[in-house]
C-alpha cells in the first residue's frame, strides 16, 4: 500500500532522484566542522518558525510593541519559550554562520570552482547581521531604542550621503513609529526573503560542486 503510494508519487515528483542528489551525495571523510552550514540552515528555519509564531501576538507600533512582548513573556502559554528560542537563536546563528565562514576560509574551500558559493556566503553573513540589527529594535525598550539610535547614526559617517542614509533607515530625522514599522517590515519580509533566496542558490551550488575535501599535506 505505502510502497505503491510512494511509487506513484516518485514517478511524478522524482523523490528518489531528489533524495540521491541532496542527502545521499558523496561526501569527503566526515568532519564535524563540515556540519556548520547545515547547522546555520537549521537555525535559519528555527528562527523562521519561532518568528512566525511571535507575530501572532507582537504588534509593531510604539504604543503596543513593548506591552505585546510583556504579554508574550508573562501571560501567553510557552510565550517565554518561543521568544527565548528566537532571542538566543539569533545570537547563536550569527556565531555559527561566522564560524562556518572561518572554516571555509581556513580549509581554502572558497577556491575554484566555489568562488560564487563563497561570495553568496558573504551576502548571507551580511543578511544575517541585518536580521540581528533589525530584530534588535523590535522590543522597543530603552536598550533597543538607543542601540538603533547609535547604529543608524553610524551610517551617517558615509561621505556625502551619510545623513541621507541615516534618515532613510529611520524614516525621518529621529526614531519614530516609522522606524519601528520599517524595521519590522525588513525583519519579517525583505531580509528573510533575500536570505531564503541566497540560501537556495548557496545550497544548489554546494550540491552541484560537492563539498571540498580537506587539504592534505600535499596542498
Amino acid at each position: 500500500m505505502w510502497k505503491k503510494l510512494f511509487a506513484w508519487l516518485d514517478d511524478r515528483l522524482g523523490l528518489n532522484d531528489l533524495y540521491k542528489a541532496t542527502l545521499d551525495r558523496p561526501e569527503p571523510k566526515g568532519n564535524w566542522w563540515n556540519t556548520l552550514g547545515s547547522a546555520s540552515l537549521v537555525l535559519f528555519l528555527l528562527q523562521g518558525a519561532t518568528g512566525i509564531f511571535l507575530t501572532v501576538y507582537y504588534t509593531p507600533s510604539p504604543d503596543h510593541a513593548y506591552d505585546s512582548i510583556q504579554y508574550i513573556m508573562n501571560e501567553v502559554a510557552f510565550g517565554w519559550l518561543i521568544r527565548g528560542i528566537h532571542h538566543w537563536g539569533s545570537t547563536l546563528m550569527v556565531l555559527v554562520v561566522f564560524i562556518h565562514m572561518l572554516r571555509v576560509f581556513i580549509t581554502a574551500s572558497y577556491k575554484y570552482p566555489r568562488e560564487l558559493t563563497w561570495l553568496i556566503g558573504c551576502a548571507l553573513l551580511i543578511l544575517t547581521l541585518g536580521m540581528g540589527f533589525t530584530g534588535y529594535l523590535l522590543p522597543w525598550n530603552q536598550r533597543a531604542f538607543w542601540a538603533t539610535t547609535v547604529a543608524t547614526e553610524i551610517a551617517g559617517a558615509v561621505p556625502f550621503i551619510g545623513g541621507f542614509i541615516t534618515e532613510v533607515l529611520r524614516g525621518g530625522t529621529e526614531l519614530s513609529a516609522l522606524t519601528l514599522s520599517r524595521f519590522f517590515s525588513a525583519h519579517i519580509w525583505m531580509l528573510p526573503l533575500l536570505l531564503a533566496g541566497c540560501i537556495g542558490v548557496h545550497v544548489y551550488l554546494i550540491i552541484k560542486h560537492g563539498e571540498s575535501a580537506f587539504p592534505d599535506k600535499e596542498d
Partner: protein
Amino acid sequence: MAGSNHISRRDFIKLATAAVGAIMVAGVGIPVINYLIDPVLGAGEDEAWIPLGPVENFEINKPTMVNFTRTKVNGWERTANSYGVFVVRRSENDLVVFSNKCTHLGCRVNWNESVGGYICPCHDAEFGPDGAIVRGPQPRPLDRYEGDAIKVEDGVVMIFFKEG
C-alpha cells in the same frame, strides 16, 4: 532468533526511532498549540445586571434602542465592546428586551418604523415586532431577555448580561 521473545535489532531501532520521534513531535507540538490557543483558554465569563433606564422613558409599543458598553482586557489592552438592545414596553408593566444581534451572522438589526419590523442590513433578514422570523435566512427569532434575565428595580429596567 526466530521463535524467541527477543526483539530483533532492526525492529528495536525502528521502535526506538518512532518513540523518540513521537516524544519530539509532542515536545514541539504541545507548546505551539498551547501558545496559539492561549487567549481563548484564559477568557473568563462576563456577567452583570445592566440598567437600561427608567421605565417611563419607554413609550408603549415603541421599540427603543439602548446602548451599553462592557470593557474587557484582551491581551495587553483594555477593549470597550458596545452592545445594543431594543426595549419594548408592550403595556404598562409588560416589558420585553431584544438583543439587536441578528441570529443569522451577527450583524446588528435596526427597527424600521415603516416596515414595522427589525431589518438586518447585511442579508435582509426581517424580524417582526415580537422578534419572530418574518422572512430571510435567520435560523431563529431574535434573542430576548425575559424571565430571570429582566427586572424592574426602583423603576429602572435592568437586564442580566452574560457572555463567555
